[in-house]
Protein backbone atom coordinates (compact mmCIF):
# COMPACT_ATOMS: atom_id res chain seq x y z
CA UNK A 1 0.00 0.00 0.00
CA UNK A 2 1.58 3.29 -1.02
CA UNK A 3 2.25 5.61 1.92
CA UNK A 4 1.83 8.81 -0.02
CA UNK A 5 -0.66 9.75 -2.69
CA UNK A 6 2.03 11.06 -5.02
CA UNK A 7 3.96 8.57 -7.13
CA UNK A 8 7.23 8.24 -5.28
CA UNK A 9 10.02 6.92 -7.49
CA UNK A 10 13.01 5.99 -5.33
CA UNK A 11 16.40 7.22 -6.48
CA UNK A 12 18.97 4.57 -5.73
CA UNK A 13 22.68 4.72 -6.39
CA UNK A 14 24.43 1.41 -6.94
CA UNK A 15 28.19 0.91 -6.76
CA UNK A 16 28.94 -2.18 -8.78
CA UNK A 17 32.26 -3.95 -9.14
CA UNK A 18 33.52 -4.23 -12.69
CA UNK A 19 34.03 -7.99 -12.78
CA UNK A 20 31.09 -9.98 -11.43
CA UNK A 21 28.26 -7.71 -10.48
CA UNK A 22 28.50 -5.17 -13.28
CA UNK A 23 28.62 -8.05 -15.75
CA UNK A 24 25.51 -9.43 -14.10
CA UNK A 25 23.81 -6.09 -14.70
CA UNK A 26 25.09 -6.21 -18.27
CA UNK A 27 23.67 -9.68 -18.68
CA UNK A 28 20.30 -8.50 -17.40
CA UNK A 29 20.46 -5.89 -20.11
CA UNK A 30 21.47 -8.11 -23.01
CA UNK A 31 18.95 -10.75 -21.93
CA UNK A 32 16.28 -8.03 -22.04
CA UNK A 33 15.25 -8.73 -18.45
CA UNK A 34 12.78 -6.08 -17.30
CA UNK A 35 13.60 -4.56 -13.94
CA UNK A 36 13.01 -1.31 -12.07
CA UNK A 37 14.85 1.64 -13.66
CA UNK A 38 15.37 3.42 -10.33
CA UNK A 39 18.96 2.36 -9.88
CA UNK A 40 21.80 4.54 -11.16
CA UNK A 41 24.86 2.37 -11.56
CA UNK A 42 28.38 3.58 -10.84
CA UNK A 43 31.00 1.05 -11.84
CA UNK A 44 34.10 0.60 -9.68
CA UNK A 45 36.91 -1.83 -10.37
CA UNK A 46 36.29 -3.76 -7.16
CA UNK A 47 33.79 -3.65 -4.34
CA UNK A 48 36.84 -3.17 -2.13
CA UNK A 49 37.19 0.24 -3.76
CA UNK A 50 33.93 1.37 -2.25
CA UNK A 51 34.75 4.04 0.30
CA UNK A 52 32.09 4.74 2.91
CA UNK A 53 32.37 8.33 1.66
CA UNK A 54 30.58 7.27 -1.55
CA UNK A 55 27.62 5.93 0.39
CA UNK A 56 27.40 8.97 2.65
CA UNK A 57 27.77 11.38 -0.25
CA UNK A 58 24.96 9.64 -2.13
CA UNK A 59 22.65 9.89 0.87
CA UNK A 60 23.67 13.47 1.63
CA UNK A 61 22.89 14.48 -1.94
CA UNK A 62 19.37 13.08 -1.86
CA UNK A 63 19.56 9.39 -2.74
CA UNK A 64 16.77 7.37 -1.13
CA UNK A 65 18.93 4.26 -0.95
CA UNK A 66 22.35 2.86 -1.83
CA UNK A 67 23.21 -0.55 -3.20
CA UNK A 68 26.66 -2.12 -3.07
CA UNK A 69 27.42 -5.14 -5.20
CA UNK A 70 30.45 -7.31 -5.70
CA UNK A 71 31.75 -10.77 -6.44
CA UNK A 72 30.72 -13.57 -4.11
CA UNK A 73 33.06 -14.09 -1.15
CA UNK A 74 35.93 -16.25 -2.35
CA UNK A 75 35.49 -15.14 -5.94
CA UNK A 76 36.85 -11.61 -5.86
CA UNK A 77 38.81 -10.80 -8.98
CA UNK A 78 41.46 -9.30 -6.71
CA UNK A 79 41.41 -12.31 -4.36
CA UNK A 80 39.79 -11.06 -1.18
CA UNK A 81 39.08 -7.35 -1.38
CA UNK A 82 35.32 -7.92 -1.33
CA UNK A 83 35.77 -8.77 2.34
CA UNK A 84 36.79 -5.17 2.83
CA UNK A 85 33.47 -4.19 1.27
CA UNK A 86 31.72 -6.55 3.65
CA UNK A 87 33.42 -5.04 6.69
CA UNK A 88 32.90 -1.46 5.53
CA UNK A 89 29.24 -2.26 4.95
CA UNK A 90 29.01 -3.59 8.51
CA UNK A 91 30.68 -0.47 9.90
CA UNK A 92 28.37 1.74 7.88
CA UNK A 93 25.20 -0.01 8.97
CA UNK A 94 26.30 0.17 12.59
CA UNK A 95 26.93 3.91 12.30
CA UNK A 96 23.94 4.78 10.14
CA UNK A 97 21.65 3.00 12.55
CA UNK A 98 22.76 5.39 15.28
CA UNK A 99 22.02 8.29 12.95
CA UNK A 100 18.48 7.03 12.48
CA UNK A 101 18.79 5.70 8.96
CA UNK A 102 16.65 2.65 8.21
CA UNK A 103 18.97 -0.31 7.54
CA UNK A 104 16.90 -1.34 4.50
CA UNK A 105 18.16 1.71 2.64
CA UNK A 106 21.70 0.36 2.38
CA UNK A 107 22.04 -3.06 0.81
CA UNK A 108 25.01 -5.28 -0.02
CA UNK A 109 24.46 -7.88 -2.70
CA UNK A 110 26.88 -10.46 -4.07
CA UNK A 111 26.30 -11.36 -7.69
CA UNK A 112 28.31 -13.44 -10.12
CA UNK A 113 28.54 -12.56 -13.80
CA UNK A 114 25.95 -15.22 -14.64
CA UNK A 115 23.38 -13.98 -12.15
CA UNK A 116 21.66 -11.35 -14.26
CA UNK A 117 18.19 -12.56 -13.32
CA UNK A 118 19.00 -12.63 -9.60
CA UNK A 119 20.47 -9.15 -9.68
CA UNK A 120 17.40 -7.80 -11.47
CA UNK A 121 15.18 -9.37 -8.84
CA UNK A 122 17.31 -7.98 -6.04
CA UNK A 123 16.99 -4.51 -7.55
CA UNK A 124 13.23 -4.87 -7.81
CA UNK A 125 13.02 -5.95 -4.15
CA UNK A 126 15.18 -3.03 -3.02
CA UNK A 127 13.13 -0.52 -4.99
CA UNK A 128 9.88 -1.79 -3.49
CA UNK A 129 11.30 -1.79 0.03
CA UNK A 130 12.41 1.79 -0.38
CA UNK A 131 9.18 2.83 -2.02
CA UNK A 132 7.43 1.58 1.12
CA UNK A 133 9.84 3.48 3.37
CA UNK A 134 9.27 6.70 1.46
CA UNK A 135 11.64 9.42 0.26
CA UNK A 136 14.66 10.09 2.45
CA UNK A 137 15.50 13.71 1.53
CA UNK A 138 18.45 13.76 3.93
CA UNK A 139 19.45 17.44 3.32
CA UNK A 140 16.07 18.45 4.78
CA UNK A 141 17.33 17.17 8.14
CA UNK A 142 19.58 20.16 8.61
CA UNK A 143 17.53 22.87 6.94
CA UNK A 144 15.92 25.34 9.29
CA UNK A 145 15.59 28.38 7.10
CA UNK A 146 12.10 29.49 8.14
CA UNK A 147 12.26 30.80 11.67
CA UNK A 148 16.02 30.97 11.63
CA UNK A 149 16.12 33.69 8.98
CA UNK A 150 13.43 35.63 10.81
CA UNK A 151 15.36 35.40 14.07
CA UNK A 152 18.53 36.59 12.32
CA UNK A 153 16.80 39.54 10.73
CA UNK A 154 15.30 40.46 14.09
CA UNK A 155 18.71 40.79 15.73
CA UNK A 156 19.68 43.97 13.91
CA UNK A 157 16.41 45.51 14.94
CA UNK A 158 16.86 44.33 18.53
CA UNK A 159 20.34 45.86 18.63
CA UNK A 160 19.00 49.16 17.34
CA UNK A 161 16.27 49.11 20.00
CA UNK A 162 18.80 48.33 22.69
CA UNK A 163 20.93 51.28 21.61
CA UNK A 164 18.08 53.76 21.94
CA UNK A 165 18.33 56.03 24.94
CA UNK A 166 15.31 55.35 27.15
CA UNK A 167 12.96 58.28 27.58
Amino acid at each position, binding site marked *: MPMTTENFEPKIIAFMCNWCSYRAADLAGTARIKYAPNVRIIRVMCSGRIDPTFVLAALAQGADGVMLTGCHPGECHYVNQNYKALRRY*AMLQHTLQQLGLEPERLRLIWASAAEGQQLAEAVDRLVEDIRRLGPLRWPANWQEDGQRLKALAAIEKEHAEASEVPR
Partner: protein
Amino acid sequence: MTQAKAKGKLALYWAASCGGCEIAVLGIDAKILDVAEAFNIVFWPCATDGKVRDVEQLPDGGIDLCLFNGGIRTSEQEYMAQLLRRKSRLLVAFGSCAQEGCIPGLANLSNRQEVFDTVYRAAGPTFAENPAEVRPQQHTEVPEGTLHLPMFYDTLRTLDQTVEVDYCLPGCPPEAENIWAAIVAILEGKLPPRGAVLGLNTTVCDECPRKRNEKKIKKFYRTWQVIPDAETCLLEQGLLCCGIATRAGCKALCPQVNSPCIGCHGANDAVQDYGARLMSALASVIDSEDPQEIGQIIAEGIPDPVGSFYRFSLAKSLLRRSKREPTQRNGA
Protein backbone atom coordinates in the same frame (compact mmCIF):
# COMPACT_ATOMS: atom_id res chain seq x y z
CA MET B 1 64.76 52.46 16.72
CA THR B 2 62.60 51.85 13.70
CA GLN B 3 59.36 53.81 13.61
CA ALA B 4 56.46 52.09 15.31
CA LYS B 5 54.39 50.13 12.80
CA ALA B 6 50.69 50.79 12.91
CA LYS B 7 49.16 48.13 15.11
CA GLY B 8 46.76 45.76 13.45
CA LYS B 9 43.29 45.23 14.86
CA LEU B 10 42.60 41.84 16.39
CA ALA B 11 39.32 40.33 17.45
CA LEU B 12 38.60 37.06 19.18
CA TYR B 13 35.11 35.69 19.51
CA TRP B 14 33.58 32.58 20.99
CA ALA B 15 30.39 30.93 19.77
CA ALA B 16 29.29 27.44 20.87
CA SER B 17 32.45 26.31 22.59
CA CYS B 18 33.94 25.38 25.94
CA GLY B 19 36.28 28.35 26.33
CA GLY B 20 39.40 26.22 25.98
CA CYS B 21 40.46 27.98 22.80
CA GLU B 22 40.44 31.31 24.61
CA ILE B 23 42.77 29.86 27.21
CA ALA B 24 44.87 28.20 24.53
CA VAL B 25 45.71 31.60 23.09
CA LEU B 26 47.28 32.43 26.43
CA GLY B 27 49.25 29.19 26.17
CA ILE B 28 51.76 31.00 24.02
CA ASP B 29 53.03 32.46 27.34
CA ALA B 30 55.37 35.41 26.99
CA LYS B 31 54.71 35.65 23.27
CA ILE B 32 51.37 37.20 24.16
CA LEU B 33 53.39 40.37 24.66
CA ASP B 34 54.54 40.17 21.04
CA VAL B 35 50.91 39.79 20.04
CA ALA B 36 50.02 42.85 22.11
CA GLU B 37 52.79 44.76 20.36
CA ALA B 38 51.56 43.86 16.92
CA PHE B 39 47.82 44.16 17.52
CA ASN B 40 45.19 46.26 19.25
CA ILE B 41 42.57 43.94 20.59
CA VAL B 42 39.32 45.60 19.54
CA PHE B 43 36.92 42.86 20.61
CA TRP B 44 37.41 39.87 22.89
CA PRO B 45 34.29 39.26 25.02
CA CYS B 46 35.99 36.55 27.06
CA ALA B 47 38.88 38.69 28.23
CA THR B 48 38.21 42.37 27.57
CA ASP B 49 35.37 44.82 27.75
CA GLY B 50 33.78 45.78 24.45
CA LYS B 51 30.46 46.29 22.81
CA VAL B 52 29.04 44.61 19.73
CA ARG B 53 27.77 48.06 18.78
CA ASP B 54 31.38 49.22 18.45
CA VAL B 55 32.13 46.35 16.09
CA GLU B 56 28.99 47.16 14.09
CA GLN B 57 30.29 50.70 13.64
CA LEU B 58 33.73 49.69 12.37
CA PRO B 59 34.27 49.98 8.63
CA ASP B 60 34.03 46.71 6.67
CA GLY B 61 37.41 45.00 6.68
CA GLY B 62 38.46 47.22 9.56
CA ILE B 63 39.53 44.28 11.70
CA ASP B 64 42.77 42.80 10.40
CA LEU B 65 42.45 39.41 12.02
CA CYS B 66 39.56 37.67 13.73
CA LEU B 67 40.15 34.39 15.54
CA PHE B 68 36.69 32.86 15.77
CA ASN B 69 36.20 29.78 17.89
CA GLY B 70 33.02 27.84 18.52
CA GLY B 71 30.26 26.33 16.42
CA ILE B 72 27.15 28.17 15.25
CA ARG B 73 23.96 27.05 16.97
CA THR B 74 22.06 30.21 17.85
CA SER B 75 20.89 33.16 15.81
CA GLU B 76 23.18 35.41 17.86
CA GLN B 77 26.20 33.29 16.97
CA GLU B 78 25.22 33.31 13.32
CA TYR B 79 24.73 37.07 13.45
CA MET B 80 28.17 37.53 15.02
CA ALA B 81 29.75 35.21 12.44
CA GLN B 82 28.25 37.30 9.64
CA LEU B 83 29.18 40.57 11.35
CA LEU B 84 32.77 39.56 12.04
CA ARG B 85 33.10 38.22 8.49
CA ARG B 86 32.07 41.61 7.13
CA LYS B 87 34.31 43.54 9.47
CA SER B 88 37.40 41.32 9.19
CA ARG B 89 40.04 41.13 6.55
CA LEU B 90 41.07 37.67 7.71
CA LEU B 91 38.63 35.36 9.46
CA VAL B 92 40.21 32.26 10.96
CA ALA B 93 38.17 29.30 12.16
CA PHE B 94 40.08 28.74 15.37
CA GLY B 95 39.89 25.25 16.79
CA SER B 96 37.78 22.19 16.23
CA CYS B 97 34.39 23.69 17.12
CA ALA B 98 34.59 26.33 14.43
CA GLN B 99 36.19 23.97 11.94
CA GLU B 100 34.07 20.85 12.35
CA GLY B 101 31.63 21.29 15.23
CA CYS B 102 33.65 19.42 17.84
CA ILE B 103 31.85 18.28 20.99
CA PRO B 104 28.95 20.76 20.80
CA GLY B 105 28.32 19.26 17.35
CA LEU B 106 27.37 15.97 18.99
CA ALA B 107 24.11 17.69 19.94
CA ASN B 108 23.29 17.08 16.29
CA LEU B 109 22.22 13.66 17.51
CA SER B 110 19.36 15.49 19.16
CA ASN B 111 17.28 18.62 18.60
CA ARG B 112 16.24 21.80 20.42
CA GLN B 113 13.15 20.29 22.02
CA GLU B 114 15.04 17.33 23.46
CA VAL B 115 17.87 19.52 24.69
CA PHE B 116 15.48 21.94 26.39
CA ASP B 117 13.41 19.11 27.83
CA THR B 118 16.52 17.56 29.32
CA VAL B 119 17.87 20.76 30.82
CA TYR B 120 14.71 22.56 31.89
CA ARG B 121 12.35 19.80 32.92
CA ALA B 122 11.59 19.24 36.59
CA ALA B 123 14.17 16.50 37.08
CA GLY B 124 16.83 18.22 34.98
CA PRO B 125 19.94 20.15 35.99
CA THR B 126 18.02 23.39 36.58
CA PHE B 127 15.36 21.75 38.77
CA ALA B 128 16.06 23.69 41.92
CA GLU B 129 15.70 27.04 40.16
CA ASN B 130 13.04 26.08 37.66
CA PRO B 131 10.28 24.05 39.31
CA ALA B 132 7.70 25.42 36.88
CA GLU B 133 9.73 24.03 33.96
CA VAL B 134 9.85 27.34 32.14
CA ARG B 135 11.54 27.07 28.75
CA PRO B 136 13.64 29.85 27.26
CA GLN B 137 11.49 32.13 25.13
CA GLN B 138 12.78 34.29 22.32
CA HIS B 139 10.60 37.23 23.36
CA THR B 140 9.42 38.02 26.85
CA GLU B 141 7.35 41.06 27.77
CA VAL B 142 8.34 42.75 30.99
CA PRO B 143 7.14 46.12 32.30
CA GLU B 144 10.30 47.78 30.94
CA GLY B 145 9.87 46.44 27.42
CA THR B 146 10.66 43.25 25.50
CA LEU B 147 13.52 40.95 26.42
CA HIS B 148 15.09 39.03 23.55
CA LEU B 149 16.92 35.72 23.56
CA PRO B 150 18.48 34.28 20.43
CA MET B 151 16.87 31.36 18.66
CA PHE B 152 18.45 28.02 19.51
CA TYR B 153 18.88 25.90 16.39
CA ASP B 154 18.19 22.20 16.03
CA THR B 155 21.44 21.73 14.16
CA LEU B 156 24.87 23.09 14.95
CA ARG B 157 26.81 24.35 11.93
CA THR B 158 30.49 24.93 11.44
CA LEU B 159 31.82 28.41 10.75
CA ASP B 160 32.42 27.64 7.09
CA GLN B 161 28.91 26.30 6.69
CA THR B 162 27.79 29.78 7.79
CA VAL B 163 30.20 32.29 6.25
CA GLU B 164 33.30 32.22 4.07
CA VAL B 165 36.36 31.38 6.11
CA ASP B 166 39.89 32.35 5.17
CA TYR B 167 41.91 29.87 7.24
CA CYS B 168 41.45 27.13 9.75
CA LEU B 169 43.53 26.26 12.76
CA PRO B 170 42.77 22.70 13.80
CA GLY B 171 42.88 21.19 17.26
CA CYS B 172 40.86 20.96 20.41
CA PRO B 173 42.35 23.29 21.32
CA PRO B 174 45.07 24.17 18.81
CA GLU B 175 48.53 23.56 20.27
CA ALA B 176 50.30 26.68 21.50
CA GLU B 177 53.16 26.37 19.04
CA ASN B 178 50.77 25.99 16.12
CA ILE B 179 48.88 29.09 17.29
CA TRP B 180 52.10 31.03 17.44
CA ALA B 181 53.25 29.73 14.04
CA ALA B 182 49.92 30.80 12.54
CA ILE B 183 50.18 34.29 14.03
CA VAL B 184 53.73 34.65 12.72
CA ALA B 185 52.65 33.46 9.27
CA ILE B 186 49.83 36.01 9.29
CA LEU B 187 52.10 38.85 10.42
CA GLU B 188 54.72 37.96 7.82
CA GLY B 189 52.14 37.45 5.10
CA LYS B 190 53.48 33.94 4.42
CA LEU B 191 50.16 32.22 4.06
CA PRO B 192 48.94 29.40 1.80
CA PRO B 193 46.04 30.11 -0.59
CA ARG B 194 42.84 31.21 1.13
CA GLY B 195 40.67 28.42 2.42
CA ALA B 196 43.59 26.33 3.59
CA VAL B 197 44.03 24.66 6.94
CA LEU B 198 47.10 26.01 8.71
CA GLY B 199 48.72 22.74 9.59
CA LEU B 200 50.51 19.64 8.43
CA ASN B 201 49.03 17.31 5.88
CA THR B 202 50.02 13.87 7.09
CA THR B 203 48.46 11.79 9.83
CA VAL B 204 49.26 11.44 13.52
CA CYS B 205 50.94 8.10 12.71
CA ASP B 206 53.68 10.09 11.08
CA GLU B 207 54.56 11.73 14.39
CA CYS B 208 53.97 8.69 16.58
CA PRO B 209 57.10 6.88 17.79
CA ARG B 210 55.38 3.53 18.36
CA LYS B 211 56.48 0.48 16.38
CA ARG B 212 54.18 -0.63 13.63
CA ASN B 213 53.86 -4.19 12.38
CA GLU B 214 50.95 -5.70 10.53
CA LYS B 215 47.53 -4.84 11.83
CA LYS B 216 45.17 -7.75 12.29
CA ILE B 217 42.47 -6.94 14.77
CA LYS B 218 40.27 -9.65 16.19
CA LYS B 219 38.81 -7.51 18.94
CA PHE B 220 38.52 -3.85 19.81
CA TYR B 221 39.19 -2.96 23.42
CA ARG B 222 37.89 0.00 25.37
CA THR B 223 40.61 2.10 26.98
CA TRP B 224 39.75 0.87 30.46
CA GLN B 225 40.00 -2.79 29.46
CA VAL B 226 43.72 -3.02 28.75
CA ILE B 227 47.01 -1.56 29.83
CA PRO B 228 48.76 -1.21 26.48
CA ASP B 229 52.40 -1.98 25.94
CA ALA B 230 54.32 1.24 25.54
CA GLU B 231 56.21 0.39 22.35
CA THR B 232 53.67 -1.04 19.93
CA CYS B 233 51.08 0.72 17.82
CA LEU B 234 47.91 1.17 19.88
CA LEU B 235 45.60 0.21 17.04
CA GLU B 236 47.47 -3.05 16.64
CA GLN B 237 46.73 -3.76 20.30
CA GLY B 238 43.02 -3.36 19.60
CA LEU B 239 42.54 0.14 20.96
CA LEU B 240 40.57 2.44 18.69
CA CYS B 241 43.32 4.89 17.88
CA CYS B 242 42.05 7.46 15.39
CA GLY B 243 45.56 8.59 14.51
CA ILE B 244 45.31 6.81 11.17
CA ALA B 245 42.72 9.28 9.96
CA THR B 246 43.69 12.40 11.90
CA ARG B 247 45.74 15.35 10.76
CA ALA B 248 49.23 15.56 12.25
CA GLY B 249 50.43 18.60 14.18
CA CYS B 250 50.14 17.56 17.80
CA LYS B 251 53.32 15.43 17.90
CA ALA B 252 51.12 12.44 18.82
CA LEU B 253 50.86 13.65 22.41
CA CYS B 254 48.14 11.22 23.41
CA PRO B 255 49.59 7.97 22.02
CA GLN B 256 52.82 8.84 23.76
CA VAL B 257 51.04 8.56 27.09
CA ASN B 258 49.24 5.33 26.24
CA SER B 259 46.05 7.11 25.28
CA PRO B 260 44.64 6.38 21.84
CA CYS B 261 44.17 9.38 19.59
CA ILE B 262 40.57 10.57 19.55
CA GLY B 263 40.90 12.73 16.48
CA CYS B 264 40.81 16.33 17.68
CA HIS B 265 42.89 17.64 14.80
CA GLY B 266 40.25 16.66 12.31
CA ALA B 267 40.60 15.35 8.80
CA ASN B 268 43.31 15.99 6.27
CA ASP B 269 42.89 18.04 3.09
CA ALA B 270 40.70 16.48 0.40
CA VAL B 271 38.85 14.33 2.94
CA GLN B 272 35.12 14.92 2.67
CA ASP B 273 34.10 12.91 5.71
CA TYR B 274 36.43 12.07 8.57
CA GLY B 275 34.36 9.20 9.94
CA ALA B 276 34.12 7.54 6.54
CA ARG B 277 37.90 7.42 6.23
CA LEU B 278 38.26 6.08 9.74
CA MET B 279 35.59 3.42 9.10
CA SER B 280 37.30 2.47 5.89
CA ALA B 281 40.70 2.09 7.51
CA LEU B 282 39.37 0.09 10.45
CA ALA B 283 37.44 -2.20 8.11
CA SER B 284 40.68 -2.93 6.30
CA VAL B 285 42.43 -4.19 9.42
CA ILE B 286 39.68 -6.22 11.05
CA ASP B 287 40.88 -9.80 10.79
CA SER B 288 37.75 -11.69 9.84
CA GLU B 289 35.87 -12.81 6.76
CA ASP B 290 32.80 -14.12 8.51
CA PRO B 291 29.80 -11.74 8.53
CA GLN B 292 28.67 -12.94 11.98
CA GLU B 293 32.07 -12.54 13.54
CA ILE B 294 32.58 -9.16 11.87
CA GLY B 295 29.25 -7.95 13.22
CA GLN B 296 30.22 -9.07 16.69
CA ILE B 297 33.67 -7.49 16.63
CA ILE B 298 32.14 -4.18 15.61
CA ALA B 299 29.11 -4.24 17.91
CA GLU B 300 31.09 -5.24 21.01
CA GLY B 301 34.13 -3.13 20.43
CA ILE B 302 32.47 0.03 19.14
CA PRO B 303 29.23 0.51 21.07
CA ASP B 304 29.02 4.20 20.13
CA PRO B 305 30.10 4.49 16.49
CA VAL B 306 29.09 8.13 16.07
CA GLY B 307 30.95 9.01 19.26
CA SER B 308 34.01 7.08 18.14
CA PHE B 309 34.10 8.03 14.45
CA TYR B 310 32.60 11.52 14.59
CA ARG B 311 33.48 12.68 18.09
CA PHE B 312 34.77 16.01 16.75
CA SER B 313 33.52 16.07 13.18
CA LEU B 314 29.80 15.25 13.21
CA ALA B 315 28.66 18.73 12.20
CA LYS B 316 31.14 18.75 9.31
CA SER B 317 30.38 15.22 8.16
CA LEU B 318 28.43 14.54 5.00
CA LEU B 319 25.29 13.64 6.91
CA ARG B 320 25.88 16.34 9.58
CA ARG B 321 23.27 15.12 12.04
CA SER B 322 20.87 12.34 12.93
CA LYS B 323 17.61 11.94 11.06
CA ARG B 324 14.79 14.19 12.13
CA GLU B 325 11.17 13.18 11.80
CA PRO B 326 9.33 14.68 8.80
CA THR B 327 7.06 16.63 11.16
CA GLN B 328 10.11 18.31 12.67
CA ARG B 329 11.64 19.13 9.33
CA ASN B 330 9.25 21.82 8.24
CA GLY B 331 11.98 24.27 7.45
CA ALA B 332 11.62 25.68 10.92
